[in-house]
């Protein structure tokens, strides 16, 4: 059994290296037949650039998603804290018979905005 498994493993390794060699030879042939020139890149180079920008896009997308979620959470937390604080201040002003400080137009506008 053990021998069979080793044999199978060797076959996979052989296939793997064969595939690498085939790819290498093809790329080498294309680069040789159509070397990159100043204005023109060959198809292999472009193919590599395409896969590079795909992986760069995936990396940036994976980085962006959690940040935007965290921003939303922070904003919600700030809103909750702000409204609690403002409510409490108004209650305190009532309790101490202090004159309620009215919100300025600007403050009203941003309160609406934050709501």
């Amino acid at each position: 059994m053990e021998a069979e498994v080793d044999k199978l493993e060797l076959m996979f390794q052989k296939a793997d290296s064969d595939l690498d060699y085939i790819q290498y030879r093809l790329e080498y042939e294309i680069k040789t037949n159509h070397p990159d020139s100043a204005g023109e890149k060959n198809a292999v180079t472009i193919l590599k650039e395409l896969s590079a920008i795909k992986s760069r896009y995936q990396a940036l997308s994976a980085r962006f998603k959690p940040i935007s979620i965290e921003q939303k959470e922070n904003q919600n937390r700030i809103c909750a804290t702000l409204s609690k604080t403002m409510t409490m201040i108004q209650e305190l002003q009532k309790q101490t018979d202090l004159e309620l400080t009215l919100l300025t137009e600007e403050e009203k506008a941003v309160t609406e905005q934050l709501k």
Partner: protein
Amino acid sequence: TLKGDVNTLLDEARLVSQESTRFIKATKVLMK
């Protein structure tokens, strides 16, 4: 489609940035 996806994500990112910037300004007004 990759170009479209990147463009869509870029637009989304810009929107989130604008919203956060506005939010921070508004909060600072109330904190004064």
